[in-house]
């Protein structure tokens, strides 16, 4: 089999069963798994963003007692494979504590365990994206707000958070796209998502290539919708600050996108 790969004998491609392909493409087989993938993506990513905010503030804190635990969290969750984290939460954690009732939702429900693993992992990446957004804010912005008599809380709410969100938005939308693909890892803890459904199907009919192609199309559908959404978001928020106040600010914002988005994409 492996030896013949280079040659591609004519019979191999002829073996593509288009009948099986189209039948499973237009069956309702993948509809529920796709909805599940979308639901897990939205929940895990959104929760990851929400957790990322306080973690980012902790990461830039001057207080070591706050900063060090956050650093340790990022070290572990960015330094180990996501697949390992999924298995650890779903299968390992309850065993470690000798199956306490409180962990039942995780050990008995793969969807919950998987979503939780994706969330905790994503929170680590969102922390870095939000941190780079926070650090990209021109200190002059804070000077100006302070000089106007605004309190730290008012400055956070009206100056820092809105500007950080603008800087962090493009890489964050990118994270939604990554997340939708990472849900496929939950196949190992038998969550009924797209890839697991495909696996079950082709182990029954042996049409591996056809079924995986159909699964690929469903993923492409999800990522295409998210990409269109991303373009929309970028157009909407790019317009107002296309030539930001000053070149320095624009440059920092640009590195904000690239640094944050890049870091997230690579390591996943």
């Amino acid at each position, binding site marked *: 089999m492996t030896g013949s790969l280079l040659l591609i004998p004519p019979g191999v491609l002829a073996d593509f069963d288009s009948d099986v392909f189209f039948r499973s493409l237009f069956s309702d087989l993948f509809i529920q798994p796709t909805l599940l993938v979308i639901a897990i993506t939205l929940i895990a990513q959104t929760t990851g963003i929400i957790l990322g905010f306080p973690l980012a503030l902790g990461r830039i804190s001057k207080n070591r007692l706050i900063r060090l635990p956050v650093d340790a969290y990022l070290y572990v969750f960015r330094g180990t494979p996501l697949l390992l984290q999924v298995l650890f939460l779903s299968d390992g954690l309850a065993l470690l504590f000798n199956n306490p009732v409180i962990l039942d939702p995780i050990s008995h429900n793969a969807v919950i365990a998987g979503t939780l693993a994706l969330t905790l992992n994503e929170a680590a990446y969102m922390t870095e994206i939000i941190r780079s957004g926070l650090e990209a804010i*021109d200190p*002059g*912005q804070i*000077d*100006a*707000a*302070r*000089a*106007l*008599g*605004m*309190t*730290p809380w*008012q400055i956070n709410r*009206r*100056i820092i958070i*809105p*500007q950080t969100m*603008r800087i962090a938005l493009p890489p964050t939308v990118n994270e939604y796209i990554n997340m939708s693909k990472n849900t496929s890892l939950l196949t190992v803890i038998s969550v009924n998502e797209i890839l697991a459904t495909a696996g079950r199907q082709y182990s029954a009919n042996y049409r591996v290539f056809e079924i995986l192609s159909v699964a690929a199309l469903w993923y492409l559908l999800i990522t295409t919708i998210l990409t269109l959404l991303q373009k929309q978001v970028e157009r909407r928020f790019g317009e*107002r*600050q*296309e*030539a*930001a*106040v*000053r070149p320095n*600010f624009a440059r920092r914002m640009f590195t904000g996108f690239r640094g944050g988005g890049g870091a997230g994409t690579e390591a996943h």
Partner: protein
Amino acid sequence: MAQENPIVHAVDVHKRFGHLEVLKGVSMDVTRGQVVVIMGPSGGGKSTFLRCLNHLEKIESGTIEVNGHAIGYRTTSGGRLVEESAKVVARQRADIGMVFQRFNLFPHMTVLDNITLAPMMVRGTGRDDARKRAMELLESVGLPQKAEEYPARLSGGQQQRVAIARALAMDPTVMLFDEPTSALDPELVGEVLETMKRLATENHMTMVCVTHEVGFAREVADRAVLIDGGVIVEDAPPDRFFNDPQHQRTQQFLSKIL
């Protein structure tokens, strides 16, 4: 100067960044309606001193009073300085206007929102009143047609005029200018200086300006001050400051910029 209480009253201000002593005992009084121009070589401490006046920088020792109120600190019975809470300092800063070299307009807000933000949030001014006042100020800096624009669409000179309007919207008792024209293209300097001149001559605003604009100093300032090496070297009416400086360091400095 001795009769009336000064608007700005700074006594023996010391400030250090780590091991570097930036201000080595600076004292300065500014009376109501006075325009003081501060000059000096970069790194001499002039901008730092200005930033101490509204507590954007902490000080090690000394006193800073604006309008008779100590800024940033209260003094214990033992004479030690204790920093006020952020909330108290914020309230103190509300009466002190400041304009920055880099304008520092808020890029995510329109020009109008930039100006109305602080009056509404800090003073609790109603939206309609704040907008009305903002439009008057935009009128006075010559930019009423830019109210709904975002700062990115404005030239540097226009941004700085908006920044002046934004500071004035708080009805400050004193305005601090930190090199307001240094970041501008040469052809845009004039419009900002013109706005500042009108503020001084027509509104009789008390102003402390760190700037190297000699023309502005000669024409508008009541006093020109040279700060170098963390101390005030020369403090004189502009005429004497530029034509007959008493100190050698002032002469050296002027020979470089004139």
